[in-house]
């Protein structure tokens, strides 16, 4: 315990300070120290994508990042992204299209989808699948997930086009 070191970082908009062991991954830190259990742990080696979070607004694996590495940075978990309503439309689309069964992969899927939707425009289904290549779902398959993301991208793009049209 003598090797615990102080870590200060911003999580979901709030500064948090804790003592952590250097080997603690960001995923374990979020789940165990901050009780943010929306970040799921699957493979713990960067293959399954269940643990994705945003660091400086980009998806990264919380299992492939140490909490000490994230010190001084800005982390947003699925709790933060969804509670500020950034993905409310996509969450509805997931619900409508039954894009989840057990839900284990869903937080990671939503974080990847967040980055896809942030780019704007309507990506092709191939591009969506490519962007989800690091997210494993073992129950529904990917068709419904791709549908939900595509639907949301089209709806956002449509809203955007209407807003920019002259009255």
């Amino acid at each position, binding site marked *: 315990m003598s090797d615990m070191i102080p870590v200060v970082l911003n999580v979901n908009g709030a500064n948090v300070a804790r003592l952590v062991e*250097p*080997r603690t*991954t960001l995923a374990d830190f979020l789940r165990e120290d901050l009780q943010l259990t929306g970040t799921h742990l699957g493979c713990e080696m960067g293959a399954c994508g269940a643990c*994705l979070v945003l660091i400086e607004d980009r998806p990264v694996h919380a*299992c492939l990042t140490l909490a*000490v590495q994230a010190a001084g940075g800005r982390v947003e978990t699925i709790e933060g992204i969804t509670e500020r309503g950034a993905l409310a439309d996509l969450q509805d689309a997931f619900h409508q299209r039954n894009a989840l069964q057990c839900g284990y992969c869903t937080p990671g899927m939503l974080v990847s989808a967040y980055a896809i939707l942030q780019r704007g425009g309507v990506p092709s289904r191939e591009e969506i699948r490519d962007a989800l290549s690091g997210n494993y779902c073992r129950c529904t398959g990917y068709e419904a997930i791709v549908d939900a993301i595509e639907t949301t991208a089209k709806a956002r793009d449509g809203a955007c086009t209407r807003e920019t049209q002259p009255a």
Partner: protein
Amino acid sequence: MKARAFKYERVSTIAQALAAHAAADGDAAFIAGGQSLIPSLALRLQAPGVLIDIAHIDALRGVSVEGDALRIGALTRHAEMLENPLIARHAPLLALAAPFVAHPAIRNRGTIGGSVALADPAAEFPTVLLALRARFEIVGAGGARMVEADDFFRDLFETALEPGELLAAVHVPCARDTDRCAFDELAVRRGDYGLVGCAARVGLDSAGRVTDAGIAFLSVGPKPTRATSVERTLIGGALDEAAIRSAQAALDSDIDPPEDDRTPATMRRRLARVLLGRTLQRLGGAA
């Protein structure tokens, strides 16, 4: 799947990084993006006593033109290969290969320095840098030195880096207007380790004849492999069908793929030949 305990030290200069490594008496590892190192720690394939975090060293950052080469700082992340206008202009082969590197989230954290220093024979960037005849800027207790790509990659996960040395940057000769380049890879699924990958760059004269070539393969041996016979075969001719067939025939003497249970050596040779054909066709078509 949890790493053994280690100490952690975040440094802000190269001198501090080298000193921290020396103080650990060899029992230390540098960490930047950590996208290969952290799984390796979790699997306990490695268990250094100290992790030295080099991700906050400004001298290892940035992309800039220096003379006729592009200097890419070791901390440049894979995702930036797709976004940086200097890379798009002067080292487009890196940008072409970047979408094949792992998955988007890994590309947001992994660094080119980490990829090169690890020297995974299945990795894209080491192979691209070999094809581009890059040079590697290494810093250590004895000062800085430059190593040519041909001398840098030595064997399986083995490079010219000595213990305690740090890769500071890669220097890529700037692409000329007469250059053509292409990258392609065959993998079971997108983002998986490539069964075979091919990085190719040729210079063409006004008549469309090849003046010089850099062709390299991934996953065909213990290290990124340059296809020197292919390069010699191509030089002086046009990139027509006959030249491509000759190049494919020459490839056999350039590579010696290992036998493994899933991918027999004969299969990998075959895939490499097919991939070389496709890649060269693309170069010819773009001319």
